[in-house]
């Protein structure tokens, strides 16, 4: 075996901070810790936006089951994102394609189960779209902070992808709550409004993860032994 000796500066740096550490929990376990966040979004979004005035118009219980399915999927996506953040455990292109494919399929199958509205003016439809985007993002954007921080405890080699997956997961959580109070099950509305909200979160997730990683790497570059 090679007997390379540890350089003194490195050894000192390691010695100065050599405390026992507990390995991070498995990605799925960490994702499950965010289940309360999912439940809060599932219940919180319809409860907040339909408070008192429109409680009766909330979706019937089978629709809630489909939303629970979306929450399950969102936790799976978040687990994938947490795994992506572990060095050497990055997701393969096949896994990413499969995950995004399943997510799209669930999104397309679950959302249009809502009733389609009668013929309405394009202004009303546009207003509803805007309403849905605002309602979803008002809750989802603050909620995105938590998974991005959890994922950033790792050392992602592809921070944009990791953040995008975080955004996708939180986007699905938001959609699970949003679809319970949405009045429009039309495909155009679902894709543009609900899908748009998810796309915004995917973009924000990617951006925030890249920023977090850049800030951290800049700090480490400054603190590094060699520089």
């Amino acid at each position, binding site marked *: 075996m090679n007997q390379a000796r540890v350089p003194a*500066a490195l050894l000192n740096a390691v010695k100065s901070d050599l405390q026992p550490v507990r390995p991070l929990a498995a990605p799925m376990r960490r994702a499950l810790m965010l289940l309360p966040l999912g439940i809060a979004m599932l219940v919180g979004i319809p409860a907040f936006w339909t408070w008192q005035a429109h409680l009766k118009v909330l979706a019937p219980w089978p629709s809630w089951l489909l939303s629970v399915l979306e929450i399950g999927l969102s936790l799976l996506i978040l687990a994938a994102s947490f795994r992506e953040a572990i060095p050497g455990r990055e997701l393969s292109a096949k896994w990413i394609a499969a995950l995004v494919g399943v997510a799209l399929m669930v999104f397309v199958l679950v959302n249009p189960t809502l009733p389609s509205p009668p013929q309405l003016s394009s202004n009303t439809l546009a207003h509803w779209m805007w309403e849905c985007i605002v309602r979803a993002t008002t809750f989802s954007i603050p909620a995105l902070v938590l998974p991005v921080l959890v994922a950033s405890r790792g050392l992602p*080699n592809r921070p944009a992808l990791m953040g995008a997956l975080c955004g996708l997961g939180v986007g699905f959580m938001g959609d699970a709550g949003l679809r319970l109070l949405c009045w429009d099950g039309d495909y155009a509305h679902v894709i543009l409004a609900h899908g748009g909200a998810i796309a915004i979160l995917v973009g924000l997730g990617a951006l925030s993860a890249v920023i977090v990683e850049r800030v951290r790497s800049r700090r480490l570059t400054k603190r590094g032994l060699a520089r």
Partner: protein
Amino acid sequence: MIAYQSGELSAFEQLYALLADEVRRYFSRTHGNRSVVPDLVQETFLEMHRSRPTYAPPLPMRPWVFGIARNVSARNFRAAQMRPPTQAMEAEAELPLETLGNAMPLADALDTERAIETLPRSVREPWLLHHAFGFSFESIAARLGITPMAAKLRSSRATKALRVALSVRRGRQR
């Protein structure tokens, strides 16, 4: 690795002995500039130390270590992209006084002294403190109340100005 995670220094030394060469070979393949390889190897082990909670024990260790090495490599590329002109200036600023003299063999000490005197004070001080007194840019920065980068830049500007001044004098002497 489990022993290392539980805080044993000897385990880290063993890991280093086991992996340092492989990591060095990895960086030698991926980086054209061989002079940065030892720094990157150290940086990788330091990052490995910081990120040791991210390793999950039953899994193989090498993919984890090389994942960290990839991260360090990407960070190094980004840092290099962000500071190419500065690095060149830094190298120039760190030229010892003798190098300057070698570049202009006809310039005698008196000429050099006069040329230094003609420099504006703002660039003369950092240059003298670094080249004549051997202070690091960090300590010059602390002394003059400027940033280390500003100290390097001023010293670099002084070097350039000196070079111009001395080559003019050399031209006159010919």
